[in-house]
């Protein structure tokens, strides 16, 4: 029997239920010192001077590091636009500028965390505050001061799509719907705050044990900032306490490496440990981007979409992080999974002094889907059409052209997921439960597509190594893979795929994971790519190792690099592109009641029809769907991240509320569909992000059906709902 499709228990579960699994903050090394970071705590300023003398004089303080100690004082996943430490003394200009509250200014290494904290508070920094740019629309204006003075604008990315003639199409349309939509921040709130330890390993490598999403990218960014060759930096991931995109960019990695490396240079090598508090975590890492989206869509009387014109403005905060890539996705997905003959999109990523923004499950897709799906739901209402019928009439098919002028890769299933979500929802009762006269019931539908893997010409590959040991038969197979298991179950699924490819029982697979010294570059655990990419790399490595085994090599070892079909970037004028090599498709139906007296929304039922291609481990797939739906329900109705003049007002889990066990939908029904992806391993597509995308617009549609009000902004907190119901 194939092990693909079996819900085998996770390899890491025993360690996690017994408390033996070690996360970065659980690891202590002999003679370790403690690191504390001085954050800027102000949104925009120039640092005139930093006086560390009092801190250095404090007994127990071992060292204080500032900008002048950074060999190459810059980093960034997409572009190196952020100083590692803000302050005077770097060769690179403008690294003395602070551009958001979470900018890091100085590092104190001490005998204990308490002493490091006291030392941090003794550092005297002279800031010259600058005007705070907290509104992206204002920051876009040519006369606005520039956050990065070397650039000629705060707009650092602009994509254009030009397909057909939208003006002519609007003139021919029977109905036009316009809307201005705003999406909120979202904080990842993974349960494990950032932490790690660093040391010089036995081979003299600066070694950082940390939780991240891409070991080899962390290694590259550390090496760049320290001015070291790659092979002198080592990154290891132990157990990772959630990520959701929030560990894609650097947090403690570079500063940990710097501290251990500088201490060794001084002849006093010591391991260094850091653990961020929850408040440091919330201020110190990026959020999901707020978007302003202006939409104008036109359709024929029968519901056929004729044209869509979209403008997207993403608030990137002080630095780029992955904003350009997130914007790329949003630009493609803002016209929905529909074939629209005439499209015009202009999208912008803009620097502001707000908290930085970047990757978060869905990666631009949720913002885009909110606008696109609300537009089509409103068109259906304006035309008196069924919201499912209007979708089926316009859904992308095999060979349909995207807004960027090229067809989707084969294996398009958006029609199937919509039909199955609808069919499963027909059993729902039309009336709210009796005895609650203030409840109003509504049903809503939405659909989405989401890329699998890196997009728009970004280099994409994944490498696996497999070694087979034994004599007559294979006694054990060692699979070396860097891919990060952030909690999604990647390592278990990798082992299942290796067992299948080698025709071995799972017990004979041994995983060596997430250590740059022992594994090759896998790319990130993001973009719903790891099952797809790791699977193809492991399959290739297993096949080659088996050939060597049959040629009597003992042990039989093979390394295989998988490269997917190439993608291409947006054409700067027309936006024409081959954006992605694979997609996942998803549709959701939502049943809810709105209490019109209190404004509270009761999520009763969510049906999620998700084409995952092939569910390698159905239990883990179901866990991803249920987890994504609850995280998305938080985004839609509960999570309210507040900033004011560039300052974060919700830096605690008591002020930034995420769903508890009493805040979930009453039932989440997972319809796991398996329309194989022609190039996916055993047909698998990616699926970790897809169930997040349609939930907000489906809720918005259901609330409209219940109350008659369209919301253009969320979260739908009771206050917001009530204000709209009782103007």
């Amino acid at each position, binding site marked *: 029997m194939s092990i693909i499709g079996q819900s085998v228990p*996770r390899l890491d579960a025993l360690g996690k239920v*017994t408390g033996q699994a070690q996360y970065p903050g659980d690891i202590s090394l002999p003679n370790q010192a403690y690191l504390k970071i001085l954050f800027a705590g102000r949104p925009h300023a120039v640092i005139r001077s930093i006086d560390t003398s009092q801190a250095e004089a404090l007994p127990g303080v071992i060292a204080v590091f500032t900008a002048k100690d950074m060999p190459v004082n810059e980093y960034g996943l997409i572009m190196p636009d952020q100083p590692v430490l803000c302050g005077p003394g770097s060769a690179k200009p403008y690294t003395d500028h602070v551009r958001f509250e979470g900018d890091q200014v100085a590092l104190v290494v001490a005998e204990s965390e308490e002493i490091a904290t006291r030392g941090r508070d003794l550092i005297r920094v002279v800031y010259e505050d600058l005007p705070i740019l907290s509104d992206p629309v204002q920051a876009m204006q040519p006369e606005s001061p520039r956050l990065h003075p070397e650039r000629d604008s705060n707009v650092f990315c602009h994509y254009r799509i030009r397909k057909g003639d939208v003006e002519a199409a609007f003139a021919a349309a029977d109905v036009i719907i316009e809307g201005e939509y705003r999406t909120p921040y979202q904080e990842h709130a993974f349960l494990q705050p950032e932490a790690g330890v660093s040391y010089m390993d036995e081979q003299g490598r600066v070694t950082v044990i940390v939780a991240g999403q891409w070991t080899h990218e962390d290694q590259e960014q550390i090496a760049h900032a320290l001015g070291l060759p790659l092979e002198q930096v080592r990154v290891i991931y132990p*157990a990772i306490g959630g990520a959701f995109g929030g560990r894609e960019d650097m947090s403690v990695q570079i500063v940990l490496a710097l501290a251990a490396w500088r201490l060794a240079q001084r002849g006093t090598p010591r391991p260094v440990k850091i653990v961020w508090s929850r408040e440091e975590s919330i201020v110190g890492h990026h959020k999901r981007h707020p978007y302003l989206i202006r939409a104008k869509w036109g359709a024929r009387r029968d519901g056929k979409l004729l044209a869509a014109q979209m403008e997207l403005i993403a608030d990137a905060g002080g630095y780029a992080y992955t904003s350009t890539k997130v914007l790329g996705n949003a630009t493609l997905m803002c016209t929905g999974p529909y074939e629209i003959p005439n499209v015009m999109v202009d999208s912008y990523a803009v620097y502001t002094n707000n908290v930085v923004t970047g990757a978060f499950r869905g990666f631009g897709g949720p913002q885009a889907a909110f606008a696109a799906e609300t537009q089509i739901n409103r068109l259906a209402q304006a035309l008196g059409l069924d919201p499912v019928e209007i979708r089926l009439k316009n859904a992308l098919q095999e060979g349909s052209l995207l807004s960027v002028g090229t067809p989707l890769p084969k294996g398009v299933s958006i029609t199937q997921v919509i039909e199955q979500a609808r069919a499963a929802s027909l059993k729902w009762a039309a009336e709210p439960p009796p005895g609650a006269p203030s409840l109003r019931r509504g049903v809503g539908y939405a659909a989405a597509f989401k890329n699998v893997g890196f997009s728009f010409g970004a280099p994409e590959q994944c490498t696996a190594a497999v070694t087979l040991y034994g004599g007559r038969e294979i006694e054990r197979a060692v699979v070396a893979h860097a891919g990060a298991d952030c*909690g999604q179950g990647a390592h278990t699924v990798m082992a299942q795929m290796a067992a299948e490819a080698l025709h071995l029982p799972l017990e004979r697979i041994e995983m060596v994971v997430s250590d740059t010294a022992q594994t090759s570059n896998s790319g990130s655990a993001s973009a719903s790519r790891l099952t797809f990419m790791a699977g193809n790399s492991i399959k290739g490595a297993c096949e080659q190792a088996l050939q060597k085994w049959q040629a009597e090599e003992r042990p039989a070892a093979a390394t295989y690099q998988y490269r997917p079909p190439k993608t291409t970037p947006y054409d700067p004028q027309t936006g024409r592109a081959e954006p992605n090599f694979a997609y996942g498709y998803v549709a959701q139906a939502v049943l809810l009641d709105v209490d019109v007296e209190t404004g509270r929304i009761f999520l009763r039922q969510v049906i999620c029809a998700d084409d995952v291609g092939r569910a390698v481990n159905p239990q883990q797939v179901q866990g991803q769907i249920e987890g994504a739906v609850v995280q998305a329900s938080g985004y839609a109705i509960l999570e309210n991240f507040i900033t004011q003049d560039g300052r974060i007002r919700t830096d605690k889990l008591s002020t930034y509320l995420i769903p508890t066990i*009493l805040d979930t939908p009453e039932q989440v029904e997972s319809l796991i569909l398996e329309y194989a992806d022609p190039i996916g391993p055993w047909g698998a597509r990616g699926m970790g992000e897809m169930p997040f995308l349609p939930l907000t617009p489906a809720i918005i549609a259901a609330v409209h059906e219940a109350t008659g009000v369209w919301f253009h902004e969320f979260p739908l907190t009771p206050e917001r709902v009530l204000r709209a119901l009782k103007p």
Partner: protein
Amino acid sequence: MTFHQINLTVNGEAEQVVVASNVTLMRMLRENLALTGVKNGCSAGECGACTVLMNGEPVNSCMVLAVECEGAEIITVEGLAKDHQLDPLQSALINEGGVQCGFCTPGVLMSARALLNRNPQPGEDQIREALVGNLCRCTGYTRIVEGIQAAAAISAAGGRP
């Protein structure tokens, strides 16, 4: 800062620990006794990852001072399995898929153990009520609830209480 000698029982073992008066139970367990299964998610009593049993009651160990634990009996996640036999809650959480990143898992297990100790056959509402202080960002909670229901069923069928 004053220091205190505390005598207490942790996972069935008598322990004597010297701690400063401002040290929390969470920190004492993690740092003095190396019980790092007790997780620190917020240090403010908001996430529940540090939940342990104190004299049979679930507490956020970040909100209890170590000096309050003189004579107390503490059970952490490390003390759930006995004689290499997993608690039914542990095996049920594995089997039902209630573990993803696992950082909330120790606290979830301790809140659930306290619930089953006082109510061996809880309904879904009672399970959810008992776990309201344990945040999980990965699972959506459904598999956790089903795991606890399965553990209760195993115990009723004669598994370890």
